């Protein structure tokens, strides 16, 4: 700590699955500002096999770019004096590759599904969902557990006070399978029991000796209520301890930081929640990384987080292709690429995750994949957000029994106020217009929505900083982190191409008056800079809703950004033409409207 206890210089790192990023923040003329950012490949592979190497490389790059001395050999210099040393070093970390677990619950559509939500919400890949009524015979279920070798098992089932038979049967099956962890002979597989509390003793008798058994509160204490928090938190703790333990050097890193290392999704979530609460708005945030895509939302003050642990731009990039299908990826690519070439390129990115697109074609292909990763991750988020609430949700019994697996989602794209993107492919896009397009195409916001990106991918670091020094975190966030792209107006409705959609009137900051009749199927971008606002009137044609109701004009004062005011009349729901040449011509037209690419 410097003189008068004021923090004057901070370095913070984020160890991602692909790259390790470092930022330097200094107190400049009474304001906390980002000075510079450095990055280096994450070093979990041979020959280093030590995550701290990548951390040091990233910090050294920061030193080089800023002229501020931070390291003395491999030690971080404390405290700060002028351009030497820092007062705080913090870090976040996301485990590359994800935790793989099995969940088990008594009824597939109830407790088993709740267990799956808990696991997904904590950042896991769910390898299988076991339920008493999943149609498999006991010996098949046992064989499955033995074959899959999950990293962890979550067992739930039975409301508190209800019968214990079924959940004890499940415990018997797990016990009989005697599952072994991936790590080897000496390691007991963690099993988390989050079911009927009356069955705890029986479950303990069956599993305590064979597994590392953890008992938490019932994740479905009554049918109409989920309580996923305790199970999710326990999974998360074991996740960090377990998977991060495989990232060599993590123990050393823990000794370097001035506060506990936060998992990256946790840190990003905390910053999203801060924005939503400070401005009283509905927010969706996304962090698309190398191995995972995390989606955060705050709707009606309810915070939700999903971690799509199998969708990402490097380690998991091939999984995006597998889940989306090659047609869905290629529909965003405005040129012909033989399928073989696309598949090989994507696989090469998967096996060499730290490479970057040098050619323009490569960039467009990566951004096409990003759109699909965002879309799929958001689908997962929407279908689970209803039950991933921190606040209990009461439903009537008939609603509970008639509930299909998706239920009623909290996510309402018409109500959404702000969409924030983070992660390499969004933050590092060579032109901000590309980030705007990926967010719009991936999420398909409706009505009026502000768009922003984390300028250089520092939300994780600011999130962990906010835990110990909120002043610097929020100041840097507002001044240096969020890049406002602009505001999107996207009417809901469809019509044949070229038919009337909206009349768009605006008085821009430079005095220009806009009075455009925009037909269906277009994208238009109007110049309105960061900090500028414009009075706008959007009059939708019959069959369209711009946010004020079907056919009703919307009058609002809208903010600008580095891209500007965007009007998207391509329709909601949105479809692309199947005819190849028509599709390519529209993609080119929309890209040109944004000036998205050189020679577009």
């Amino acid at each position, binding site marked *: 700590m410097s003189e008068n206890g004021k923090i004057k210089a901070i370095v913070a790192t984020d160890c991602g699955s692909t790259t390790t990023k470092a930022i330097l923040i200094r107190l400049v003329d009474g304001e906390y500002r980002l000075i510079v950012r450095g990055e280096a490949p994450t070093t979990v*592979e041979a020959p280093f096999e030590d995550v701290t190497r990548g951390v040091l490389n990233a910090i050294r790059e920061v030193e*080089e770019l800023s002229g501020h001395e931070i390291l003395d050999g491999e030690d971080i210099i404390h405290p700060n004096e002028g351009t030497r040393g820092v007062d705080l070093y913090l870090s976040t970390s996301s485990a590359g*590759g994800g935790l793989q677990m099995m969940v088990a619950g008594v009824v597939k559509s109830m407790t088993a599904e709740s267990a799956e939500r808990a696991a997904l919400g904590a950042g896991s890949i769910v390898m299988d969902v076991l339920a008493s009524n999943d149609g498999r015979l006991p010996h098949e279920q046992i064989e499955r557990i033995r074959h899959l070798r999950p990293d962890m098992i979550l067992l739930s089932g039975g409301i508190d006070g209800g019968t214990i038979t079924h959940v004890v049967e499940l415990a018997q099956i797990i016990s009989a399978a005697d599952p*072994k962890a991936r790590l080897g002979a000496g390691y007991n597989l963690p099993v988390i029991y989050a079911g009927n509390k009356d069955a705890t003793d029986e479950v303990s008798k069956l599993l305590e000796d064979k597994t590392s058994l953890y008992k938490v509160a019932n994740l479905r204490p009554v049918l109409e209520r989920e309580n996923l928090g305790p199970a999710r938190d326990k999974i998360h703790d074991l996740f960090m301890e377990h998977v991060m333990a495989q990232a060599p050097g993590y123990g050393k890193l823990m000794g370097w930081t001035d506060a506990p290392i936060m998992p990256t999704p946790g840190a990003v979530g905390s910053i999203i929640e801060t924005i939503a609460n400070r401005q009283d708005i509905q927010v969706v945030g996304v962090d698309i990384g190398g191995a995972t895509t995390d989606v955060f939302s705050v709707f009606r003050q309810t915070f939700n987080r999903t971690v799509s642990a*199998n969708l990402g731009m490097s380690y998991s990039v091939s999984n995006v292709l597998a889940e989306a299908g090659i047609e869905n990826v290629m529909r965003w690519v405005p040129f012909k690429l033989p399928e073989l070439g696309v598949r*090989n390129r994507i696989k090469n990115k998967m096996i060499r995750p730290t490479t970057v*697109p*040098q050619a323009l074609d490569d960039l467009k292909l990566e951004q096409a994949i990003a759109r699909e990763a965002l879309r799929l991750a958001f689908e997962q988020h929407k279908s689970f957000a209803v039950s991933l609430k921190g606040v209990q949700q009461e439903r009537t019994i008939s609603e509970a029994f008639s509930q299909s697996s998706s239920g009623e989602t909290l996510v309402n794209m018409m109500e959404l106020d702000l969409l924030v993107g983070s992660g390499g492919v969004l933050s590092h896009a060579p032109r901000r217009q590309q980030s705007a397009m990926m967010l719009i195409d991936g999420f398909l916001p409706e009505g009026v929505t502000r768009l922003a990106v984390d300028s250089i991918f520092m939300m994780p670091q600011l999130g962990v900083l906010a835990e110990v020094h909120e002043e610097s975190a929020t100041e840097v966030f507002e001044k240096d982190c969020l890049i406002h792209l602009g505001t999107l107006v996207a009417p809901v409705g469809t019509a044949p191409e070229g038919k009337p959609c909206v009349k768009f009137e605006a008085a821009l900051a430079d005095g220009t008056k806009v009075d455009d009749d925009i037909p269906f199927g277009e994208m238009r971008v109007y110049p309105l800079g960061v900090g500028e606002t414009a009075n706008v009137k959007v009059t939708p044609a019959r069959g369209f809703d711009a946010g004020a109701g079907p056919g009703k004009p919307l009058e609002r004062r809208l903010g600008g950004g580095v891209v500007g005011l965007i009007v998207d009349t391509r329709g909601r729901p949105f479809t692309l033409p199947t005819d190849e040449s028509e599709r390519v011509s529209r993609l080119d037209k929309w890209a040109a409207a944004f000036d998205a690419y050189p020679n577009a």
Partner: protein
Amino acid sequence: MAHAYTPGLRVSERTVVRKERRLPIKGEVVVAIGDTVTSETVVARTHLPGNVQLINVASKLGLPPEDLPTVMQKKDGDPIEKGEALAETQGFFGLFKSRVPSPCEGTVESISTVTGQVILREPPTPIEIDAYVEGKVVEIFPEEGVAVETVGTFIQGIFGVGGEKTGEIAVVVNGPGDPLDASLITEAHKGKIVIGGSHVKWDGLQKAMDVRASGIVVGGFDDPDLKRLLGKDLGVAITGHEDLATALILTEGFGEIAMAHGTFDLLKSREGRKASVNGATQIRAGVIRPEIVVPLEGDAEDVVEGASATTGLEIGSLIRVIREPYFGALGRVVDLPNELQKMESESMVRVLKVEFEDKEQALLPRANVEMIEG
């Protein structure tokens, strides 16, 4: 000056290779420190618990679970034969008895008065692990396994499928840029590790599996063929458990890519020697790359390790390009500008200037090259 670190795969002509061989569950180590082992030598063994059968005896007999002890003919730990009575009711004055026969041979593992289930455990399956590489036992992990050390050539591939295999190295192409055509593989390659050049197609791989070659090592392979081989699109690169007659190891990546000269020449120099290969790949925390180990004569003490790649990129470093454009090209670093540069994609990145073998020069992102040992 910061060293911009660029990771690379290990390709060592002669190094000490240490392999840990561990049982999946506790068992017995059957070799001693100092023992010389071949790749087939069993170093540890144990028994995998037998398959489990669950029978709801209470339900079969129409009894409440808590009454189970009154009808059970066996107790926990008792052996049982197939067809033997597990449980039997007394019936009505000795008549109308009901009986539950055991569906298998095994042991009664547990009887639950809560669920009414009886768990039977079939006889255990013996499992053994071998040394995998020819060498010497240098460490014992009690009840778990051993560490085997050897001196030899060690080559890491970039991606593979299939587990551990052994065989003699057989180079079937003339140069690293030659494709491994199916016609080059014959019955004589049964049990061998076949070394190709740039690429093998589906028919070549099929031929190798037909003749039961132990492995194929080649520069590149096509993803659609991988999908065909695995029966599904590989989403995340975690492999090694596939049940394949022939392991496949790629040294360069996907597509038609000439094997790196150094790797090809090294494998060629080891032709005829026995190699141990493993196609297992894991690209996540705790990365595992496929490997080829060729034990050589000599002791660990005599090995002098070559310059490692831990020093980072420098002027004069030998590199290989690992992404389009120039994928697979070799060159030497001639400049390391500090300032970010704009690429065709307009990405601003830290670059290096490379001079290729044909003297052409190019500016490339530092992230798109890997160092190779000089």
